């Protein structure tokens, strides 16, 4: 069937901010969908609150709204745009849920909007556990024994009837939030409370656990004519019981027999037919009993998912593109396979390599979090690796994670012979378990024992045993070209080989090159070499045949950002993608190296050539030696490529744009201080300490409080504000572990200072300020976690002038060619320079969207030799609207972690609120971040002593608006003394009903709770924990409280309006 002609305008809902369980994969699927729709002549209306996405670029859709993803806002947009159809299947769970709510509230019907890709009934059948179970039973598919609970009592009855262990699955949640495995009635009790609260419809599936079964996933596409294609199978190395997002996954499935494979594939076809998914992609999860082959259906995602992105990158099939085409009526045979360029999308890909997905965790950011892996996802990112064999791909995947590991062990990072600990770590699922399999083997545990402890399939353990065997052989044999080749073919990195043989990475590389042992590059081509294909991408391997088609045209290599983690996320991928676009616009070939399968940068058509490789020196050099580019762009991918700048330069690579030396000048404390002195700028008093003694001396000199951190870190890793010597000593003892090669930096902490972020662009001669952003929160909160507003709202123009001058001076002195980001602090009228980053910052996409200028593209063109004048960007863009960036936190994933902000970055993503008034822009940013600001109700206030006076005017006005104020005794007495009535309620340990009871009874509309000092009392920790768990809006800083108050005040009088980003940009252009 050809495409539908009865629909013209299609609404697409994105997935909002990056959170645990929903990362860049929906930017990838969304932007592919937009492209696919527009090439067929459809008009696309896009809504997403996340400015750091490619999909919200003005070029991607006809009309783009960067607005909160709420039913109210969507209603307004539908009213205004009157789309014919809504495509709900490519915007993650957020997009899907919104579509369902819009359908349920009758809004779609009212405006005649048709759901395409999946109808409401199909979504219900897949997502409502009860209906799902019935549907599966109807087609004879086994589902684990289970029951649905809507209350604690109901849940307890079901659970005790089925027996332990049990899995709790809240309905309609993302990445299993609020779910988990319970082993006894006490855990069931607590688990149910959490799970019911986590489900937006208060429904929980209490399910028989199939712990230890194989976890298998199939990715399926089905068109409206009932043609079905199995894109790939995937097998989790970790058996059932660990969320697939947290599992190490291998594709294709390795331990299924043909019969099992075909049986499951047939089940897939009947399942998605029964559910009614038609014109879309879907993901089906199965549990397979390893002892008899019984298959149970666990879950169906009636939409594109994280696994789809992985399946897509693993096979080369652009699933999002195909699914979109199917949604508008095409059948699979009518859609082209863009990779081969000659076959159709009705094709089940064959692959001739092995793919790994490794999850990236950030437990180091949340020391209080439970590192146990369960059915609730905890990882924040992932890498994909490709090798010819399981062993090669596994080792590449591990080094791609950038956790300091050079592969599966033998990298000098561990030496553990404590068998008890090893056994424990095998038994309890955790992020490091794969390493313990190796350690267990080294300690002569049998594969059987390892299997019994971990339930990991014996085949996988045997593969790891083969890696260990190679490691042991290497340590015994003399090194010659045969052993080197042998090691390389088993995925060993030069670093590992160096470690085993007591050599250095450089020497191994030299020896290897001298022996002619270089990687060959092979193709991801969807067809295992059956056809000559048009747009393949590459992976390296140590095998004979090479299919690299590197050209001799002028080209530039872009280094991507690797796995998402806190401090380095989609913002950097956005910049890399723009770099690629800009290169192609300028007539260069763009070559991308990255290993993050969620991203747009690893999409098959973003660059001229894509290398799916880990971003280590070895792997990058291998590509560079092959491609021989004119230069390499390292300033867009965040810290990952930046760390490679100097070593690459040493190896003769030309770094484009700002020099690594200039980057060093900005990062090296001594050189930086000299620079500031030379150009007459201030910085907070500071010093560098190599020992505890030195640190104490410095701190005494500059006086407490001081900000301490190890040098060369990302996202404020291990950064702390300490108030006294005791705190300092404790920090030094833990920090020295962080990075022994680098000293600890100590700065005077500017209490209550105002922070300002500036992004600017320079061609080495002239500088244009792109955006000056004022932080909402006071100094001391990591800039990646602060809310900020562009333009500034409280700075006098004289000071803004000062900021501009300082920015220009810094950019010129550092000879910046490209982007620069500067953080300033303002205290008592003095401007301090806190930090200078002569590279793309996290705020580049935000500023680009706010001012309507593609900064990363301009910066790329400057690196190629263009001047700002030639590019037509010579003046700062004046904006009349306000754009607020707000951060989004993963606290709900880590029960036990205190939800307060500090100098260490904790947020996973961001949203943007944009409006003609600051207050409404801020309100929008809060809604977009999931903080539903109230217009009435009860507000709980409990603030530290020093915040009490600033709280007064806020409390007074809120009270005047009719809000009821609840407070703890200290705050309450202070308010009372100043004539504000509040209801004083007991603290958690003081009696009941206390604030936690109020929250649990859904009586609290907002919480203003600032932590008291660096070691907050347990009491307020638990208040914040419950607030996060229950989703009560929570404000933990005084400045945040003030902005929130202003927003609430405005919301009571001004209705929320929506305006497209195109309209904002048009208004800017009119003014210029």
């Amino acid at each position: 069937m050809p495409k539908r002609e009865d629909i013209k305008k299609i609404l697409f809902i994105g997935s909002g901010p990056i959170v645990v369980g929903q990362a860049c994969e929906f930017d990838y699927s969304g932007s592919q969908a937009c492209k696919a729709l527009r090439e067929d002549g459809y008009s696309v209306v896009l809504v997403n609150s996340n400015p750091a996405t490619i999909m919200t670029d003005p070029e991607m859709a006809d009309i783009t709204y960067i607005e909160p993803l709420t039913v109210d806002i969507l209603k307004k947009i539908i009213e205004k745009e009157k789309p014919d159809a809504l495509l709900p299947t490519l915007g993650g769970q957020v997009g899907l849920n919104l579509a369902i709510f819009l359908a349920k509230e009758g809004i779609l019907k009212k405006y005649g909007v048709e759901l395409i890709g999946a109808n409401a009934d199909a979504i219900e059948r897949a997502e409502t556990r009860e209906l799902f179970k019935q549907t599966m039973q109807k087609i004879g598919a086994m589902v684990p024994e289970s029951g649905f609970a809507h209350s604690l009592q109901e849940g307890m009855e079901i659970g005790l009837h089925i027996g332990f262990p049990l899995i709790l699955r809240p309905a309609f949640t993302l990445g299993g939030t609020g779910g988990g495995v319970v082993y006894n009635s006490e855990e069931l009790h607590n688990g149910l409370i959490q799970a019911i609260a986590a489900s937006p419809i208060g429904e929980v599936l209490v399910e028989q656990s199939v712990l230890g079964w194989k976890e298998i996933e199939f990715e399926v596409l089905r068109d409206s004519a009932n043609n079905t294609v199995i894109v790939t199978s995937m097998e989790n190395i970790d058996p059932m019981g660990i969320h697939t997002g947290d599992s190490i996954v291998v594709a294709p499935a390795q331990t299924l027999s043909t019969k099992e494979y075909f049986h499951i594939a047939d089940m897939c076809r009947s399942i998605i037919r029964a559910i009614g998914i038609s014109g879309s992609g879907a993901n089906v999860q199965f549990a397979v009993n390893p002892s008899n082959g019984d298959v149970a259906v666990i879950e169906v995602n009636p939409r594109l998912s994280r696994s789809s992105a992985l399946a897509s990158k693993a096979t080369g099939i652009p699933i999002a593109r195909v699914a979109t085409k199917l949604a508008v009526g095409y059948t699979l045979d009518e859609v082209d396979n863009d990779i081969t360029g000659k076959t159709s999308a009705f094709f089940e890909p064959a692959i001739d390599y092995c793919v790994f997905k490794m999850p990236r965790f950030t437990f180091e950011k949340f020391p209080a979090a439970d590192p146990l892996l369960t059915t609730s996802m905890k990882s924040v990112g992932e890498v994909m690796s490709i090798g010819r064999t399981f062993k090669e791909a596994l080792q590449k995947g591990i080094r791609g994670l950038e956790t300091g590991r050079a592969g599966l062990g033998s990298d000098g990072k561990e030496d553990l012979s404590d068998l008890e600990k090893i056994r424990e770590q095998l038994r309890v699922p955790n992020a490091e378990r794969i390493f313990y399999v190796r350690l267990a083997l080294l300690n002569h545990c049998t594969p059987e024992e390892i299997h019994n402890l971990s339930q990991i399939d014996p085949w996988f353990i045997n593969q790891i045993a083969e890696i260990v065997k190679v490691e042991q052989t290497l340590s015994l044999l003399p090194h010659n070209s045969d052993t080197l080749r042998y090691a390389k073919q088993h995925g060993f990195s030069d670093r590992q080989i160096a470690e085993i043989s007591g050599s250095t990475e450089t020497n191994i590389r030299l020896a290897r090159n001298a022996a002619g042992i270089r990687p060959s590059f092979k193709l991801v081509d969807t067809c295992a070499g059956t056809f000559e294909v048009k747009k393949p991408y590459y992976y390296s391997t140590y095998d004979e045949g090479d299919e690299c088609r590197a050209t001799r045209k002028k080209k530039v290599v872009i280094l991507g950002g690797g796995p998402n983690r806190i401090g380095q996320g989609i913002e950097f991928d956005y910049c890399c993608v723009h770099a690629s676009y800009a290169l192609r616009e300028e007539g260069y070939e763009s070559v991308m190296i990255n290993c993050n399968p969620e991203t747009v940068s690893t999409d098959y058509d973003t660059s001229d050539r894509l290398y799916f490789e880990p971003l280590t020196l070895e792997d990058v050099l291998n590509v560079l030696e092959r491609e021989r580019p004119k230069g390499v762009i390292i300033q867009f991918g965040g810290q990952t490529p930046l760390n490679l700048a100097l070593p690459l330069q040493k190896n003769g690579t030309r770094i484009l744009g700002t020099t690594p030396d200039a980057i060093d000048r900005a990062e090296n404390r001594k050189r930086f201080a000299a620079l500031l002195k030379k150009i007459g700028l201030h910085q907070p008093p500071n010093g560098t300490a190599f020992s505890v003694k030195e640190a104490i001396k410095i701190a005494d000199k500059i006086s407490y409080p001081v900000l301490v951190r190890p040098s060369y870190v990302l996202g404020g890793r291990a950064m702390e504000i300490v108030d006294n010597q005791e705190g300092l000593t404790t920090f030094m003892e833990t920090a020295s572990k962080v990075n022994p090669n680098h000293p600890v930096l100590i700065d005077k902490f500017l209490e209550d200072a105002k922070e300002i972020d500036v992004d600017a662009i320079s061609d080495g001669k002239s500088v244009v300020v792109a955006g000056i952003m004022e932080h909402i929160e006071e100094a001391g909160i990591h800039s990646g976690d602060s809310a900020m507003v562009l333009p500034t709202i409280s700075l006098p123009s004289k000071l803004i002038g000062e900021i501009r001058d300082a920015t220009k001076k810094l950019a010129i002195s550092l000879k910046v060619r490209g982007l620069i980001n500067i953080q300033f602090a303002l205290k008592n009228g003095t401007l301090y320079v806190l930090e200078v980053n002569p590279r793309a910052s996290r705020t580049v996409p935000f500023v680009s969207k706010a001012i309507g200028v593609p900064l990363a593209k301009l910066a790329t063109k400057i690196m190629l030799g263009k001047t700002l004048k030639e590019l037509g960007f010579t003046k700062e863009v004046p904006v009349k609207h306000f754009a607020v960036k707000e951060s989004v936190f993963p606290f709900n994933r880590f029960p036990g972690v205190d939800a307060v902000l500090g100098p260490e970055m904790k947020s996973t993503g961001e949203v943007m609120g944009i409006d003609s008034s600051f207050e409404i822009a801020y309100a929008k940013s809060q809604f977009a971040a999931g903080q539903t600001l109230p217009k009435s109700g009860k507000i709980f206030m409990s603030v530290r002593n020093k915040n009490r006076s600033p709280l007064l005017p806020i409390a007074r006005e809120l009270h005047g608006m009719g809000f009821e104020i609840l407070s703890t005794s200290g705050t309450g007495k202070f308010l009372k003394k100043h004539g504000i009535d509040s209801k004083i309620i007991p603290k958690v340990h003081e009696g009941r009903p206390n604030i936690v009871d109020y929250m649990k009874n859904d009586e609290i509309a907002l919480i203003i709770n600032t932590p008291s000092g660096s070691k907050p009392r347990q009491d307020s920790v638990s208040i914040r924990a419950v607030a996060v768990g229950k989703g009560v809006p929570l404000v933990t800083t005084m400045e945040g409280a003030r902005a929130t108050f202003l927003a609430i005040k405005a919301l009571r009088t001004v209705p929320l309006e929506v305006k497209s980003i195109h309209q904002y940009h048009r208004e800017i252009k009119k003014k210029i």
Partner: protein
Amino acid sequence: MIKKALLLLEDGTCWEGSSLGASGIAAGTVLFYIGMTGYQSILTNPSCAGYIMVMGYPMIGNYGINEEEHLSEEAQVKGCCIKETSLFYSNWQAKEGFCEFAERKGLVILNGIDTQAIIRHLRIYGSMRGVIGTGDKNRATLRQTLLSSPSEPPPAPLRKVERLGKKEAPWKVAVIDAGIDRQSIGILQNHGFYVTLFPWNTPSSDLLSSRPHGIIIAGGPRNTAMISTLATTLNNLYGTIPILGLGVGFEAACLSLGATSKKLPAGHFSQNQPVIHHQSKRCITTIQNHLYTIEPSFLPGVDITYRNLNDNTPEGIACNQINLTALHFSLASDTAIIAEFMEKMDA
């Protein structure tokens, strides 16, 4: 000590690796199989008899060898080339390891080579004859063996007449065994057919004497003598009874109707051959094991029912006048094949 093995192709290209499975020399046409599972089926499939199979998926042997996936008792393929043979297997159904099986059944394995490079070579230069030799076989000897090896596989062995199922079954079919596999026979039995298996040289009168409701002709690989005998048999049968041709049965039917055969550059050997049904536009992913296709120069009245979505070659024909359906893919590909044939037998 690792024993060496090598693959020598007709054009002189050579790959060296190690030897697993049986020792000796295996010569035949070199083809490739890109399925990620299914190694056991392809190697025991009578349709692949006499070939050397290059395995596209790099890791082979992971789930061992089980009872159910045998398409015949023997290793039909003479030799195979593998990137990395798994000596360890893990699957509840497995009865033995892949290497033990290969050794037991005389299957020669060239292991530890870049199979993808060979596949690329075959894709570019077309399939050709080759020889695998294990140990320190002299290259000249190997070349001699290669050059004296037949350019096509032998005809399917002549079987004894065999009857399966219950006599009172609603459908009786006569099956001409031109190398039919065990799975296909199993499917017929599962549908409650009373199946009589005949050797491929059975004359049409003998086939009809058992008074079947329909005739099925299935198997492979293509052998010139066998296929022309089959074509003659078919010509004698046309118009008397519903006929279903599968695999080489498709090729024989086409030949009998005036089509000529054409060698595909590298054949269709995989579980993922996409075909589209012309009339309904229904697409199915099929299992195929054939090296030849046909030039569609038919007599009037013959419809091409299926085409391959990758290379547009005909994959199915129908001629209602003579009650013939012929498909170039395995019976296991689609349950509708049997259903349609039953309708015809009912009519």
